[in-house]
């Protein structure tokens, strides 16, 4: 978590690419709905998406996106949905990293009863968007290597964690 800044550019680019590749938005899940502005708008109401939590908190598209021109005539054009700022910076405008880290602690659920702090466990090149996604299911990267009880208690918007690849 300590080495964020250097990778912001890379993350930003990845973000923009994901947003502009309609139809390939989510390689991780089979989603046949057309990737239109409507899709993104609907995601604010879907239990499968972190966007809903933000929508419920009273946020709308323009809180994260700029250049929002979809007024009925450009619904098929998603490339206009640009992020207001890049990568972690966007999330950290509202969320405090220390607060998040201190809040998400799974007591005694690590190996030999150690606490697990998913947001600060590793010195790493890990960003908010490495796991959290707004308009599709989030992916628990921890589950790539670890199997821990808390992983089964996450809300529906998380992909079911699986054991290590073999």
């Amino acid at each position, binding site marked *: 978590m300590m080495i964020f800044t250097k990778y912001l550019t890379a993350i930003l680019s990845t973000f923009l690419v994901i947003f502009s590749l309609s139809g390939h938005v989510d390689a991780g899940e089979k989603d046949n709905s057309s990737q239109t502005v409507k899709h993104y708008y609907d995601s604010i109401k879907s239990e499968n998406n972190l966007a809903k939590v933000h929508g419920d908190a009273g946020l709308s598209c323009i809180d994260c996106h700029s250049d929002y021109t979809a007024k009925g005539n450009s619904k098929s054009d998603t490339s206009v949905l640009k992020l207001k700022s890049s990568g972690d910076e966007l999330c950290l405008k509202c969320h405090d990293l220390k607060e998040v880290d201190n809040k998400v602690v799974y007591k005694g659920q690590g190996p*030999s009863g150690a606490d697990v702090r998913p947001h600060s466990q590793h010195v790493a090149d890990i960003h908010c968007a490495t796991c959290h996604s707004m308009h599709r299911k989030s992916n628990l990267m921890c589950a790539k290597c670890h199997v821990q009880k808390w992983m089964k208690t996450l809300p529906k918007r998380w992909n079911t964690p699986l*054991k290590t690849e073999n």
Partner: protein
Amino acid sequence: MNSKNKKTTDMSRRSFMKTSAMSALGVASASLISGVAPEVEAKTALVQSNGKYGFETPPSPIPSRMIREFATADVIVVGGGISGVMAAKSAQENGAKVIVLQKGPVVMCHGFSMGCIDSKIQIEKNIRINKMNAITELNYQSLNKPKFELLKLWAEHSGETFNWIDDMTTKHGVKGIFIPNAGTESGESGGKYWFNSYCTGHKWKGGMIVAINLVAKEAVKAGVEFRFNTPGKQLVQDKSGRITGVIAKHEITGDYIQFNAKKGVILCTGDYGNNPDMLQKYCPAAVGLKSYYTPRHNTGDGHLMGIWVGAEMENGIHTKMAHVHSTPDFADSDAPGRGMPWLAVQKEGKRLCNEDIPFYLMANQTLNATNPDGLYYNILDSDWEENLKQFPPRVAGAIDRQSFDEALSRGLIIKADKIEELANKLNLPAETFSKTVARYNELVEKGVDEDFGKIAVDLSFIKKAPFYGIPRLCCISAILGGININTKMQVLDKEQHIIHGLYAAGNVSGGFFGGANDYPFPIIGLSVGRATTFGRLAGRYAAKG
């Protein structure tokens, strides 16, 4: 979750990984390079014609026109695991500007126990292990193959290395703990055939991965730079033969980056347990066993970079560490009672061996079965708790009613009312299996193990239903063979000459286990103990140039 669902989600996870690793950005950069690329990646397939493996032929040097970025530091550490993090912190403390290149996105390692002698905790507890006795026993069990001077170096510096790490982790509220019940001060733990160990084990709650991440945090705070997703690919060598840097390839962007080292490059890339060709050549005794190491980053990168610039690999066959688990998934906990002397059968339903043989040697017998898969099965009956009172104490996985029931509910222990039913559930040939159990009961009755010579007190009946089977999977934790080094951690060539500017520590370095068939156990936590101690020494020596 049914298997179909599992598969679907598994696919999605893999695709997700693919997406993140191969973002369109990465693909675009990679395509800039392809087309003009010489063969700068090592070949992986066997080259049959000259009898050599593809990896033995050095790839073409990566031309400087393909380098997208240059960076310079005093010391470049290749690998951010146990030895790499120690090397980086130690080099920084000795005045060097340090960059660590890590494969994948995180500082990570395996391992739970760090072996050392004369830690502050041992001294507080007045446990004074005789260093020379301990390493002499280690040398004997390693068939007199190790470089004794390296064993001495570990014995002399391991205690202070523990103290050094512990000072850093304690700052973060995680104190090192001495493991008192594995081994003894005298190195004798009881029976002749059970393993005898010195009580050298130390641990941090949560394992070595917690400890090294805390050390890495201290390193970052002190100015050490970590580059992630940036595995080293080739060393840079000047005309005099000195190593002056390393070229890495970013796993996401595909860009080549050259890291110049003013003082030295330290290889800390771990072992090669997930490189099938290297296993075939250097450790055929491990072929047929699954790897317990995930993610599959341990592909011998440092070994290869080393041999391509003339480093000498230690004599094969290399030492394998094949321990006993329930699944090849290291994140999953294992069934309890590993190492208890209940009847053990192999996949053909025959008895495996004298069950007093320590768990770390069980793999070898499983390999004698047809189409070996590393599996064997402990067989017990409903009196298993009584058996535990009968068996003399030994170093083994703890087992009690609670852990037993939990493993049973997770399917790590299989229960059946009849022996034939147990055979079916374990997928063992019922007829052979039934005969094996009957014969074993006969031997218990006689009080003499006529078949394998196990001591009588470790024989116990399998008569009272329900019966239980505990599948045990022997899999490879690490391969402990590497490129030769001297006592300054400097890499040596075929003539034992120093390759200046190049250091190695941890599992990429050789000469410590010497190539005995299996990782010996007289010193608990020795592999991690070596990685920490030698990583720290390598950092110090490299920083001093």
